[in-house]
Structures are given as structure tokens and as C-alpha cells.
């Protein structure tokens, strides 16, 4: 077993890439951008997670999955805290995460500067055919972070990871 002094940030991120969001299972917590800080001490790792939505019901599950995954590093103390003092927005989704979303029929969230306005939800590009002749059916979906659309061209319903 490695000694804890040798644990690096990359080791930790490598493991966290194997922890997935139960509500969007194709994305890892790293791709989601919800790992907002990692503190490494000789005897302790401290990971800080920022939930997407304050009421995200998956966050406790993610937290225990992260703790369990990192326990394989052999560091005596693994602490995982959840707080929202560090900002999170969908702009923090990784490029790889965006591609994975699109491959799975999810329109990735549009990037935005400054504050977003909900109007940027309109006319999302259909992840199946690429058309922007689409209609927002509801900004709310099967999970807090998902919105529902209909593509008028290929006549498919699809979802978007909605900007926040």
C-alpha cells in the first residue's frame, strides 16, 4: 500500500472520476465540476463538494460514494464535506462531460457569461439531429438539473442539462 504522504491530487481525481452522479449516471463528479476543493495533509484528505441544486437529493449518496472510493488510498482520515460557499455553475461542466451528455441524448448546458437568464433555455439544439427548431416543454424535468424539450424536426423528446 502506498504511504499517505505520496497521495497526490491526481491520484484523488483519478479515483473520483469513477464516482458517478446517480441522477446522470454517465457523468463523474469530476466531469460535473462539483468537486470544488481538495486539501491534502499527511494523515488526512479533505474533499469539498458543491451540490448542483441546494435540494439535490443525490448529494448524500455521492458524498458517501466519494468517501468510500477514497478510503482505498489508505489515508487515515478521509473527510468529505458538502457546502455551497464555493460557487458552482453549469459552466464548470468539463468538455468531456459535455460530449458524454450529447452522446447520451442530453443537450449540454449552454455556456454563458456573467448571469444567465432563463431565456437561454429556448431553442436548445436537438442532441439527435442537431436542429434548433425545438420547443422547451418545461424548464423542469425528471431531476432538478434537467429540462424537457421536443424537437420539431426529428420529432423526438429530449432533455437538456439546464444552465444554472
Amino acid at each position, binding site marked *: 500500500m502506498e504511504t499517505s504522504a505520496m497521495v497526490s491530487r491526481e491520484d484523488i481525481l483519478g479515483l473520483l472520476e469513477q464516482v458517478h452522479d446517480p441522477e446522470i449516471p454517465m457523468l463523474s463528479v469530476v466531469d460535473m465540476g462539483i468537486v470544488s476543493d481538495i486539501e491534502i495533509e499527511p494523515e488526512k484528505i479533505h474533499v469539498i463538494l458543491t451540490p448542483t441544486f*441546494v*435540494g439535490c437529493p443525490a448529494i448524500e449518496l455521492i458524498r458517501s460514494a466519494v468517501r468510500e472510493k477514497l478510503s482505498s488510498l489508505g489515508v487515515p482520515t478521509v473527510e468529505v464535506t458538502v457546502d455551497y460557499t464555493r460557487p*458552482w455553475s453549469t459552466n464548470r461542466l468539463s468538455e468531456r462531460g459535455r460530449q458524454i451528455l450529447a452522446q447520451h441524448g442530453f443537450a449540454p448546458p449552454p455556456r454563458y457569461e456573467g448571469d444567465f437568464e432563463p431565456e437561454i433555455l429556448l431553442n436548445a439544439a436537438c442532441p439527435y439531429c442537431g436542429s434548433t427548431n425545438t420547443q422547451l416543454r418545461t424548464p423542469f424535468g425528471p431531476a432538478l438539473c434537467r429540462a424537457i424539450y421536443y424537437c420539431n424536426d426529428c420529432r423526438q423528446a429530449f432533455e437538456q442539462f439546464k*444552465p444554472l
Partner: protein
Amino acid sequence: MTEQYRAALEDLLFRMADDALIYGHRNSEWTGLAPLLEEDIAFSSIAQDKLGHALALYRMLHEMGHPDPDQLAFMRSEHQFRCCHLVELPTQDYAVALMRHALFDYAEHHRYELLEESSYAPLAALARKVRGEIKYHIFHASTWLRMLGVEGTDESRARMQAALDMLFPYALGIFEPTQQEETLRELGIFPGEGILREHWLEDVVPLLESAGYRVPEPSEVEPVVGGRHGYHTEHLQPLLEEMTAVFRIDPTAEW
């Protein structure tokens, strides 16, 4: 934290948390029953967001020495609640649900906007975090105000107008001041219900008018108050009984 600071902060946190919890519960009553599937999902999602906000606020109170969030949400008596009457009202009519949604969530939007500058750092952080969520809530509300107003039918306009006339005095009750009003302002925690009411009116009145409704003259309307001091409508107690029924079977159960 001085005693004075703590008392003022707690007063504000209980009002906000109880509003979010009770309003969230009322919204959840549309789960499975809303007139459209999309609306069912919308009200359920908004309910989930509001319960998240309530949980975050109860957690702050817990960190200040109060019981844990479940105890605060499910084990207090009616008179310990500090929610406004607007959120307590039952809504069998979808027009009433939508109109309340608009009136309440625009107030939430402005309340959290003011709190982004709060001297209590955890509350300021929460306010910045929920800003995006509440944008979706008011986006949803304003879309429906227009669809059933200027873009609607005579019947939809009439029903929404009746809902507005009925709810407006309750909406003004959101801003019922408490004895902590002055202290909250002096200590930089929150600029006060008076300022919030002004911001809300500046936004909501033109919004409602442009959506095709007649807004009562605020200075001529008597706000429905009492909730911020523990006096509630006859609708709160039955709501609490229903909301807490499962929890009370075994308050020590592990979930």
C-alpha cells in the same frame, strides 16, 4: 455572535425556513394532480427546491443550537411556526396555485437578492447559490401569467384575476414586520421587509399589468398579517398533521 445578533438572525431564519417548508408542501400537493404532465413536474420540482432551501435554513438554525432540521420541520406546534398566511392557503384551483406562485416567488427572488449582501456570511452564500434556482421559478410563473392573461381566454383571465384579487392582501402579508426589523437592518443582516415590499411592488405590479391583470392599489389594501407572530389561518394545523403523520409514527426512526 452577540445575543442581539442571534435573536434578530433567528427571527429571520425561522420566517424564511417556515415559508419555504409550507409553500413547498403546498406545491407538492400537485404531484400527480396538476392539469398537465409538465405542470405536475414543474410544481413537484419547485417543491423539491423549496424543501432544499428550508433544509439549508433549518441547518443554519441547528448550527446555532436549535434541534436538528427534522425536529424543527416536523415536531413544532402550529404557534411556533412563523410562515405568512399566503403559503398556508389550500389551493384546489390551479389559477390560485399559479397566482400565489407568482406573488410568492417574486418576493423570494427579491428577498434573496437583498440577502446576497447580508453580514451573516452563510446566508449570503446561500442567497448566491439559490439565485439561479429561483430564476427558474419566476420564469415559470411569469410564463403562465402571460399565457392565461394577455394570451389567454376570457375565462382564464377572469379566473386568474379573481385569484389575484383574493390573494393580494395575503401577498402583502409576506412583508409583515417583526420586532427585529430595526435590528436586522442595523446589523446588516437584512435591509428589512419595508424595502423588500418596495422592490417587490416595483417588479410585480408592471409584470401583472403587462400580463393583462388589474392590480389592486396597494395602499388601499389591508395586508393579512399574524403569521410572523405565530397566529395562523385554520389551514395550517391540518397541513401540519398531514405533513408530519409519517414522521410522528416513530420520530427516532432512521431513514
